[in-house]
């Protein structure tokens, strides 16, 4: 006697669910974990870890400098990703040159890690233009502020690239809060139905501004959302860059080799307030943050690499020096007022301005010529 639907293969289900516990390769003390915690993933090569270390240090220095620039009035606002360096750097290093990154408003560190000039990367937050870099050149979509709305773009772009015969993969970052939006759902579903090579990486940093994870979801963990779309899922210790690299490299391979999208939840923590303008004391206790300090992604890798003899005191000093130089250059360049032309407002609305837009532009030119 027939069932009304085909009988489900047990493996289909288990193959889509994430590991029970987040994958972790290096623990908080810088020690390699045992097989259980690894979920079958291999430690990335030492060279890659060294590179990740250097970039995390640079990234953090960038982040600190950006926050400092808000105090000097050089940035309107800055959302720090301190504590999330393993995600920001691991996500980018797992990508190849032909791949695309879809960052959110918080992921400025990932932009500079991918090679965007630091001043261009801060364009949005400085306020001279919406997107300070050329997305087509960098293969990085504009940082997305309306949460989750970039996720369907990533699915569409990845699908389109595959249709063109490219082996491009898209990696879309999203916050724990962003997963609650309808667009997250629709993006995952489109990606799965069309087999788009896109990896959705949830940086679950426990907060959406002030709203804690428990108000965002009742799921066992966010990675359990994947199976509902037929998307293979994984969860990873988002403060262990080795694990992030291993899991995302695998996920990107999965997508690139035609197996469709993947969903990865990286467990991490937002160490700073939401932005420089936020007051985290209103909604969380310093004692909670304190728990996450020893889980720091940089110190953990530093300890591991030092222990493994792959990082000397001298190496550390050198990395720090170049980070300082980088920050200094950024500061210097940010201290120059950008040149803005009010007419530019009218230039990129449509390919050809309408007669009305031309008249409006003249109004502004007239007034600004008058000093008005």
């Amino acid at each position, binding site marked *: 006697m027939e069932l009304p639907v085909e009988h489900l293969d047990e493996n289909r289900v288990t193959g889509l669910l994430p590991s029970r516990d987040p994958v972790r390769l290096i623990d908080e003390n810088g020690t390699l974990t045992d097989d259980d915690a690894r979920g079958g993933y291999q430690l990335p090569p030492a060279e890659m870890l060294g590179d990740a270390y250097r970039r995390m240090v640079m990234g953090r220095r960038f982040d600190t400098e950006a926050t400092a620039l808000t105090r000097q009035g050089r940035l309107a606002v800055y959302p720090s990703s301190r504590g999330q360096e393993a995600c920001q750097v691991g996500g980018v290093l797992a990508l190849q040159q032909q791949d695309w990154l879809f960052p959110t408003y918080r992921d400025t560190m990932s932009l500079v890690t991918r090679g965007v000039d630091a001043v261009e990367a801060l364009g949005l937050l400085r306020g001279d233009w919406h*997107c300070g870099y050329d997305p087509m050149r960098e293969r990085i979509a504009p940082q997305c502020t309306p949460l989750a709305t970039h996720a369907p*773009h990533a*699915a*569409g772009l*990845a699908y389109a690239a595959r*249709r*063109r015969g490219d082996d491009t993969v898209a990696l879309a970052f999203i916050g724990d809060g962003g997963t609650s939006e309808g667009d997250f*759902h629709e993006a995952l579903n489109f990606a799965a*139905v069309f087999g788009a090579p896109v990896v959705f990486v949830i940086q679950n940093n426990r907060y959406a501004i002030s709203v804690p994870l428990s108000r965002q979801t009742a799921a066992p963990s966010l990675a359990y959302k994947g199976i509902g779309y037929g998307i293979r899922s994984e969860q990873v210790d988002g403060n262990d860059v080795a694990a992030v690299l291993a899991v995302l490299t695998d996920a990107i391979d999965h997508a690139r080799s035609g197996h469709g999208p993947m969903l990865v939840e990286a467990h991490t923590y937002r160490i700073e307030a939401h932005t420089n303008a936020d007051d985290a004391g209103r909604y969380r206790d310093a004692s909670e943050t304190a728990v996450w300090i020893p889980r720091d992604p940089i110190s953990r890798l530093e300890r591991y690499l030092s222990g493994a003899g792959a990082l000397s005191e001298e190496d550390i000093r050198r990395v720090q020096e170049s980070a300082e130089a980088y920050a200094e250059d950024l500061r210097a360049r940010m201290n120059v007022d950008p040149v803005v032309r009010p007419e530019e407002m009218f230039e990129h609305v449509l390919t050809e301005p309408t007669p*009305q837009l031309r008249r409006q532009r003249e109004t502004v030119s007239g007034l600004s010529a008058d000093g008005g």
Partner: protein
Amino acid sequence: MLAAISQNGAVMTLAVSMVQALNAALRDALRADDSVVVFGEDVGALGGVFRVTDGLTDEFGEDRCFDTPLAESGIVGFAAGMAMQGFRPVVEMQFDAFAYPAFEQIASHVAKMRNRTRGTVTMPMVIRIPYGGGIGGVEHHSDSSESHYAHIPGLKVATPATVDDAYSLLREAIDDPDPVVFMEPKGLYWAKAETELPARTAPFGHAATRRAGDDVTLVAYGPAVKVALEAAEAASEEGVEAEVIDLRTLAPYDDVTVAKSVSNTGRCVVISEATGFAGIAGELAARVQQECFYSLAAPVLRVTGFDIPYPPPMHEHHYLPSVDRVLDTINQLEWD
């Protein structure tokens, strides 16, 4: 079959419906440009609930015309991503009110992407929206949402009132480097005209004078053009000659043609099916009074949908701008 018309360039005069013209435009665009893709709900095997995409999957394959999951925001967002890779997506929203879930994608991304990126990321896509009433549809199937799109900078908004324009404006929309919201008047879908396809009419931003007249200008677009023309004929019997202007595109908007006509007639009635308050008809009236102030013998009046939700089918003939309402309004134009 209509397909035969534009195949191998053979041209023959046939009675063609607007649906057929739109279908031919999609077909010809798919043929002309590999980067054109058509997708949405039920546009594949079914050919769309209005059959505008009839036969496209058959002819061009699943890669060029395909069904998607039922999610309008996803459809538009996915299209935006494809556009970033050089595709020219033409997506269908099944009915006017079912485009609302995509509002955020349209307003915050499709319309702004080019601006945001200083022109480096463009959005050459078309969002087709069957709109307007008069087809006996139950709620959510007859909204006139064009004012919302017209109010969003960065979008073009086209809406044909003739079979030739349906073909030509849609071809132009697909070729346009900017995103176009293409509003298709459901009430005119099955109206036929003797024509030859492929037809090419005036480009975006050029209104068409559908009837000449010296006494009053009727400004209309989409489904209201038919009402305007019928009202003009009726008025003519009473000795009033109305000039009927069909805007064709709401954005870009053709100030010149409208102002020229009203400067001559001195009177103007704007006709639009959409709810009047804060809609596009207000814009049109505001512009006309500004541009033709010294020519006006009477205030610019509007005949629009009322400020109520679109009513159930048994009420809709009372809601829609009718010839009677237009004539009544013309009569109010201070004819001394």
